[in-house]
């Protein structure tokens, strides 16, 4: 049970002067229940990579398997396997098309072939997850709502298909800080509530730090690092910087304090743990004096 990529290479516009290698020899496995962050600077191949996870792009060489089913060999089985993977693209609000919010979110469940009652249950659930009030918006046109709400509707449309692996490509792009926080806490809640895998693509380290249990760092079409966030930030800072990934504020604070001579031990990378670790180090310093 996993999404597995073996030796995947992808070349855009092969055989033309515009030819460009976007992925080179990618090997990785995503297990159920993981919260994976994929980071890298613009053009590092993140979006191309995740489009292989549900067969939207066919690798130029190598293969992609979902639960041991090759996505590009057995058509019928592959079709079933692809349904396990939900994908929220960048600016997903551009895919809205239905007359009402309800109908748009119901599009995915309806394509799976669920009954009307089941569809309504799913739509209600999905709207609840993204923080939209069913009675207030379900019968309105999605195009009358604000950008942030349209984004939520689009995300709900994918959540409603209840994918075992949910991929989100820059879900917070273009949202204000509050909107970002809300979206991320909703994604986290969803992850906890369903126990399904979430794969979050972003170039913003701040977003991913509190969420992911595993980080995959992309650079130049290759996976350069694949580890837990703590491990990466404590032990691989140079490689992170080489890959063009910004170090989060919390880390740069820790770095500054350490280089100023404060001996801070390893700790979890959230505000409370870091504050505790800093207090502890300061306390120790006092005792030493």
């Amino acid at each position, binding site marked *: 049970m996993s999404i597995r990529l073996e030796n995947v290479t992808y070349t*855009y*516009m092969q*055989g*033309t*002067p515009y030819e460009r290698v976007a992925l080179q020899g990618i090997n990785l496995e995503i297990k159920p229940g993981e919260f994976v962050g994929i980071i890298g600077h613009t053009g590092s191949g993140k979006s191309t990579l995740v*489009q292989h996870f*549900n067969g*939207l792009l066919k690798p130029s060489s190598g293969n992609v398997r979902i639960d041991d089913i090759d996505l590009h060999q057995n058509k019928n089985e592959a079709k079933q396997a692809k*349904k396990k*993977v*939900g*994908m929220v*693209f960048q600016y*997903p609000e*551009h*895919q*809205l*098309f239905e007359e009402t919010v309800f109908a748009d979110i119901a*599009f*995915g469940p309806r*394509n*799976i072939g669920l009954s009307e009652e089941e569809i309504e249950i799913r739509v209600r659930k999905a709207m609840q997850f993204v923080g939209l009030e069913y009675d207030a918006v379900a019968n309105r046109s999605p*195009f009358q709502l604000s950008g942030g709400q349209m984004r939520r509707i689009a995300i709900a*449309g*994918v959540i409603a*298909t209840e994918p075992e692996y949910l991929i989100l490509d820059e879900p917070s792009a273009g949202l204000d800080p509050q909107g970002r926080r809300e979206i991320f806490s909703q994604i986290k809640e969803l992850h906890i509530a369903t126990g399904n895998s979430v794969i979050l693509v972003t170039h913003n380290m701040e977003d991913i730090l509190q969420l992911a249990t595993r980080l995959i760092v992309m650079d130049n079409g290759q996976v350069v690092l694949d580890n837990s966030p703590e491990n990466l930030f404590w032990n691989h800072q140079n490689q992170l910087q080489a890959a063009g990934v910004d170090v989060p504020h919390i880390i740069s604070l820790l770095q500054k304090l350490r280089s100023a001579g404060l001996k801070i031990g390893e700790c979890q990378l959230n505000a409370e743990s870091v504050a505790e670790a800093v207090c502890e180090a300061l306390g120790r310093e006092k005792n030493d004096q």
Partner: protein
Amino acid sequence: MINNITFGQYFPGNSVLHRLDPRTKIVGTLLFISSIFLAEKTTAYTVILAFIIFAVIVSGISLRTILRSFRPLWIILVFTLGIHMFSTPGLVLYAWGPLTLTQEGLRQGIFMSSRLLFLIVISSLLTFTTSPIVLTDGIERLLSPFRKIGFPAHELAMMMTIALRFIPTLLEETDRIMKAQMARGADFSSGSIIRRAQNMIPLLIPLFISAFRRADELATAMEARCYRGGENRTRMKELMITWLDGVAVMILLLMLGVLGYLRWWQ
């Protein structure tokens, strides 16, 4: 998914064809296209074929790219060939029931479909070697004499530039929306024609919305930069006729002369 459309695409380069003035290329292409219809004999077709091969070599465009540009049109080619092969009266070569393949039909079919082929290759060459901006610049200059009778040459060229500029953008957009809807279980490639047309709705509506949004944003951006019409506008790149254009015109006229000779005096 849709990035294998080559027909009408520009390939940057620095070949002789790339460096020709767009006006020469446009007028040359039109002349060439009309000259194709002068050809009746095998020798005339050979002359045209030789010219095309020469043009392709000079353009530096790979043969594979040229062949790929036929792909959207091969049905028309085969159809033309078939219709002529089986519907022209003459010496019967083979007969399958009501279908009779005649010698004249075969000849006519091959000639007709090669005319089409020539048309595709030469017009593809024009767009392969001329960037859309330069192309519309050329069209604007060619049409500018008609401004005197109130013809909006600049506005037309601007509209064409914008339209051409947004083809790749909209293709990309289509690709993205298509993938997004496919990820939600939409199916664009199976079912009856009516079913398929219905399945296009989730693609077409977002596409129209985004096209209108882009148009609106572009109009605002142009107004914010005080854009207005063609009067008194200067250009960053002036079009220049060089000796290369002279040589190109000479070669073209030579070929036209040969074709005319083959048609009327032989």
